[in-house]
């Protein structure tokens, strides 16, 4: 198709970068927000604005809650297509789990239940509940955790659950990201020579390209490893080899593993009670300390609940390293005796844990967390400047030929860059303004998000008409101003509706909420700076020359 390698790489970079770039903007931006997802949850759910808590007592706090849990109505609804015949009324419980990190004030619990008459015998339905670990009191289900239940899943699935379509789109975008990085390196002949090159005073096409190259190259390992690790995390969705072609091999392994480890694969069918899990947790912590790695409980799970084959697994939280959890210790459910202590991981498992842990970041390291945000936002700048370069390069030509390509790309670029900010800030404003006891409050917040984004898109399309004359669209500046105003409004509303203004949150050192407010204000400041620069550029060279002659600028 192409006369040489470099041309094929350039073509791939341009067209796959352009089309998948819109998806990648969303993935990178909400991925960056997800670094502080739990902190955003605190901002959105004022009742949860207290200090992070360790895993509470299972016997006193968790067991009564677990016993009460059932599959969620949504899970049952989604499972309708996965059963033969009518949906059952009761769902026998199979497993319980609780996971916490050093950043969680509230605790998320989940329960796995059998799905009667399921087409796939291994299928199950899940129940979830969020509790205050100090008391066991449940948080209302429709108080949406905007960070961990909205921004984070948006980042990896675009909230398109039907047949995992969103996961596939994001996966393809991740492949496109790696393609863009490799092809970008091939295209960028002077990659070392121009490593620090950024010429903001030149015309838009040149400075956009400089910034695109800069942000792409300096964080290249970051961008590549995040795309690759993201794909590996969902590898089972993209290449479900061991549940299809190699399923017999998988089953064989499961049986061997159950025999080797002593952890029963199936339930016995004989009812039994659960011994004190607190005693098991204490024993696990004693064993970790004896190995010189004392730590907190990260993950607690009970398999085959209520059965003689029940076993309890206690995993250490990965707070002090990259791997998520580890050092699993397993106890017999009915007696509390030790079944197995997980051996040290193999080299391959270590590499896999490192890759996934690097992406999912449950470690305690605030500097690295902020550096991740820097990397993610650099990725956003790389993609956005890519759009700008594409449009600038073609808009004159397209205007002359009366082709609307550049105009549409610009409109979608505005939608994906500033429009996305407007949608995000609108959702936060809605979160503060909607009545606390509004039923389906979380759903309303989501409608606000999508609605605001659609409006931003409509505005962008309407206001890109000047592109037809190869001028800059005013949509960029207008949306920058709007985003800035919305961000400030969100901070003010937080103050008005919760009393937690910045002086109070910084003064008491409650950084989750202070951090979100400060980030909103910083975003507003950046948006204002951008809007003013855009106005100067849009007004054209004559105004800039006049400004340059004025005394203040001459002395600058």
């Amino acid at each position, binding site marked *: 198709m192409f006369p040489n390698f470099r041309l094929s790489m350039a073509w791939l970079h341009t067209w796959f970068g352009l089309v998948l770039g819109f998806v990648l903007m969303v993935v990178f931006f909400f991925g960056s927000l997800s670094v502080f997802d739990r902190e955003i949850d605190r901002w959105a759910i004022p009742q949860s604005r207290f200090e992070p808590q360790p895993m509470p007592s299972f016997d006193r706090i968790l067991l009564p809650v677990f016993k009460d849990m059932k599959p969620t109505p949504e899970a049952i609804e989604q499972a309708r297509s996965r059963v033969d015949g009518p949906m059952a009324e009761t769902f026998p419980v199979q497993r319980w789990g609780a996971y916490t990190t050093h950043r969680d004030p509230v605790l998320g619990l989940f329960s796995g239940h059998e799905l009667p008459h399921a087409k796939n015998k291994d299928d199950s339905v899940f129940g979830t509940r969020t509790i205050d670990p100090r008391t066991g009191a449940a948080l209302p289900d429709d108080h949406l955790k905007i960070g961990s239940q909205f921004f984070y899943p948006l980042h990896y699935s675009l909230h398109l659950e039907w047949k995992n379509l969103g996961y596939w789109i994001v996966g393809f975008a991740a492949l496109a990201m790696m393609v863009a990085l490799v092809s970008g390196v091939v295209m960028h002949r002077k990659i070392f*020579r121009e*490593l*620090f*090159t*950024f*010429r*903001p005073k030149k015309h838009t096409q040149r400075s956009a390209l400089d910034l695109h190259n*800069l*942000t792409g190259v*300096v*964080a290249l*390992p*970051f961008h590549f490893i995040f795309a690759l690790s993201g794909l590996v995390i969902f590898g089972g969705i993209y290449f479900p080899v061991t549940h299809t072609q190699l399923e017999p091999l998988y089953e064989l392994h499961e049986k061997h593993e159950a025999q080797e480890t002593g952890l029963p694969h199936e339930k016995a069918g004989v009812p039994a009670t659960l011994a004190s899990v607190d005693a098991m947790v204490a024993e696990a912590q004693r064993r970790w300390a004896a190995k010189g790695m004392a730590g907190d409980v990260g993950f607690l799970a009970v398999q085959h609940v209520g059965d003689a084959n029940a076993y309890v697994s206690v995993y250490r939280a990965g707070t002090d*390293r*990259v791997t998520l959890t580890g050092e699993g210790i397993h106890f017999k459910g009915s007696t509390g005796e030790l079944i197995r202590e997980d051996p040290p991981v193999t080299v391959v498992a270590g590499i896999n844990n*490192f890759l996934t842990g*690097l992406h999912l970041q449950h*470690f305690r*390291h605030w*500097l*690295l967390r902020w*550096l*991740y945000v*820097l*990397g993610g936002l*650099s990725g956003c700048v790389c993609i956005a400047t890519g759009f700008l370069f594409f449009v600038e390069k073609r808009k004159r030509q397209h205007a002359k030929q009366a082709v609307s390509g550049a105009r549409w790309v610009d409109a979608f670029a505005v939608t994906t860059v500033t429009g996305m900010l407007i949608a995000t800030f609108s959702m936060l404003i809605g979160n503060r303004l909607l009545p606390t006891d509004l039923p389906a409050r979380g759903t309303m917040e989501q409608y606000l998000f999508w609605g605001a984004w659609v409006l931003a898109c409509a505005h962008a399309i309407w206001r890109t008409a000047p592109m037809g004359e190869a001028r800059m669209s005013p949509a960029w500046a207008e949306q920058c101003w709007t985003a800035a105003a919305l961000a400030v409004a969100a901070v003010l509303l937080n103050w008005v509706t919760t009393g937690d203004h910045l002086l109070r949150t910084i003064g008491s050192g409650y950084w989750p909420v202070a951090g979100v407010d400060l980030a909103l204000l910083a975003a507003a400041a950046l948006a204002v700076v951008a809007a003013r620069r855009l106005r100067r550029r849009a007004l054209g060279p004559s105004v800039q020359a006049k400004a340059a002659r004025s005394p203040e600028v001459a002395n600058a």
Partner: protein
Amino acid sequence: MPDSLLYAVALVANLTGLAWLALSMDVHWEQVRGPVPAPRRTVVLLRWLGAVVVASSLAVCLSVDHGSMASLVWFMVLAGSALTIAFTLAWKPRLLAPLVAWVRGGDASPARQG
């Protein structure tokens, strides 16, 4: 030494090392020191200095966290430092002049021609 101080040292080391690496290139040398390019010896020296200092920043990171976390921190601080140096060269290149003030020759800045 408290961790935050060590991180600050690592950051400064990365900034300095990358600045030297940048200044070993003619185009950036000219932005900071004027149109006369640096002598060949200086270019080589700056490259070596830059590389050594950047590598030492990794050693500092490793003294704070264990291997896997430290290398991630170092890579990302490197990225942030590269961005900072690029922006400094774009808007305020003279800020980097003190880093090469000890280099004699190759300096034709207007102030000296007064």
